[in-house]
């Protein structure tokens, strides 16, 4: 069959198009079977859940009993009546803002520092990358032991005669503990990402600037930073998206406490959905989170025109 096809390709364009269309149909059928497993999975575990999530957010389903359509009252309740929602929203934004800034600053600093080394660059990269390849739960549990009352952290503070309350049980410090753990677990990826981008900056640019009398500080701000700014932007957007969803560390270390001090949107979805079984209401929170992710990403894309430098 394919042999005949080859002959027709030589003999005439008119025939080829007829053969071609039959071939296209056969190719279409092959493509269908190739795509089928993925499509079934995607429809069942992605498309249906997305639609179901929208529908659920307009119902008051509590897992048992029949769901009732309640219109937008979940959304109204969330923004006007739920006493926990605004603290949760504030915690999420607070976490995201502080974590995002510190993550980018620390990972960029480490990346620059690593790139200045003459030996052992790759081993330093591995060290900072290690936590990103390990379960966030295990990381959080280890840090919990460090921050536990009478644990290592308290011990160090007391031996330096710094009087401070326990990190995990203090209303304001608990969030800082969560951020420290998240940073330890999360800076490695961006460190390697930015380090790789710095490696791609052509040496000739830096050499030329040096000859023109630019010092290290100027070379960083005027050449290296603008050249890696697209990667910096990519890292910032991805980090923002993941930090708005923070859950693991909070589940292990504080369960949203003390009080509501570390309850974030991700934790609220889990709590409402799987502790109170308010499937409808939890879906509403999920869509608020999605809206926030979209909004923050849009803002970053808008801001990038001011600071991201594209080559072409």
């Amino acid at each position, binding site marked *: 069959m394919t042999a005949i096809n080859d002959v027709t390709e030589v003999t005439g364009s008119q025939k080829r198009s007829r053969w071609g269309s039959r071939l296209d149909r056969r190719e279409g059928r092959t493509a269908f079977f*190739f795509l089928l497993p993925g499509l079934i999975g995607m429809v069942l575990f992605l498309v249906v859940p997305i639609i179901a999530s929208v529908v659920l957010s307009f119902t008051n389903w509590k897992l048992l009993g029949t769901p009732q359509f309640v219109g937008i009252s979940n959304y109204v309740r969330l923004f006007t009546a739920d006493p926990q929602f605004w603290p949760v929203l504030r915690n999420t934004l607070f976490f995201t803002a502080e974590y995002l800034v510190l993550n980018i600053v620390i990972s960029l600093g480490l990346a620059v520092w690593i790139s200045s080394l003459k030996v052992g660059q790759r081993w330093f990269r591995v060290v900072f990358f290690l936590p990103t*390849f390990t379960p966030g739960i295990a990381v959080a549990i280890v840090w919990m032991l460090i921050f536990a009352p009478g644990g290592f952290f308290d011990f160090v503070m007391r031996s330096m005669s710094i009087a401070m309350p326990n990190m995990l049980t203090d209303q304001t410090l608990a969030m800082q503990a969560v951020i420290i753990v998240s940073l330890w677990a999360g800076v490695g*990826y961006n460190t390697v990402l930015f380090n790789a981008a710095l490696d791609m900056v052509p040496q000739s640019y830096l050499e030329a600037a040096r000859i023109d009398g630019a010092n290290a500080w100027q070379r960083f701000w005027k050449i290296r930073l603008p050249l890696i700014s697209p990667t910096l932007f990519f*890292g910032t957007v991805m980090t923002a998206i993941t930090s708005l969803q923070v859950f693991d560390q909070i589940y292990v270390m504080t369960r949203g406490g003390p009080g509501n001090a570390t309850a974030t949107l991700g934790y609220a979805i889990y709590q409402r959905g799987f502790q109170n079984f308010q499937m409808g209401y939890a879906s509403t929170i999920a869509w608020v989170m999605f809206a926030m992710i979209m909004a923050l990403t849009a803002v970053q894309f808008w801001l990038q025109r001011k600071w991201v430098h594209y080559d072409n």
Partner: protein
Amino acid sequence: MTTKSRTRLSLALDILNHGGLLIVALVFLFPFFWMVTNAVRSNAEVMAYPVRILPQVFEWDNFAKAWTQLPFGRFFFNSMFVASSVTVITVIVSCLSGYAFARLKFPGRDALLMAYLGTLMVPAIMLIIPLFLIVNSLGMVNTFQGVILPVAFGTFGAFLMRQFFLSIPMELEEAARIDGASRLRILVSIIVPLSMPAIGLLSLFTFIAQWNNFLWPLIVMTGSDNATLPVGLTYFQTQQGTQWNFIMAGAALSMLPGVFLAILLQKLIYNSIALNAGMGGR
């Protein structure tokens, strides 16, 4: 300043620069150290104050006890089974779809590819509620298939494999087609062997993501023996009088594959992230 003293100065600065980062790296590694050294203490010593940096008695058999008694050994194999299964399914499905997107003509191909990419925008945590309801209605709560199937059909793999397949010269499969080989045959015996770097990368990141996954197995495995290691770790964390030493041993166990792979495959990981760094710009 003479040239000699200038080189001596720059050497001193270099040593200072390396030494400084070495100290930072050692401080950074402290939680790993703390985990392992607390895993081999008695529980009384873990809780003792003032804190000692090193254990007085090294109880190495804590690892064996955690493995058999808690049962972190069982959780370890559960994790291994879940992460491996998801990886195998993801690779097979991604290769099939990726090949269709890269090499086959069919109506609506570009639109479907865009739809695949669009689903990447949806954060995983948003879908846990409807996904749980689906798994529940299929009667798969507390089962391995309930944990595995919903996370095994991510669309990123199809896109990754498509990109890689496009870089393989068409001529390599044309000869096989003239000989009458089917598309599936071509994919399995020509394309897949040439795509091992991409398949390796997809496997590595899928395996690690699932090994480390917490929220989804937490919801599906409601307190059963089928729990994965991260979920199993939290079972023992809530009770009062926590056996911290055993939990640290379990945590160390859960970190083992990731640490091992990160060190062993550092070059592959660096190259794949460097690819992101390059694409982030252009």
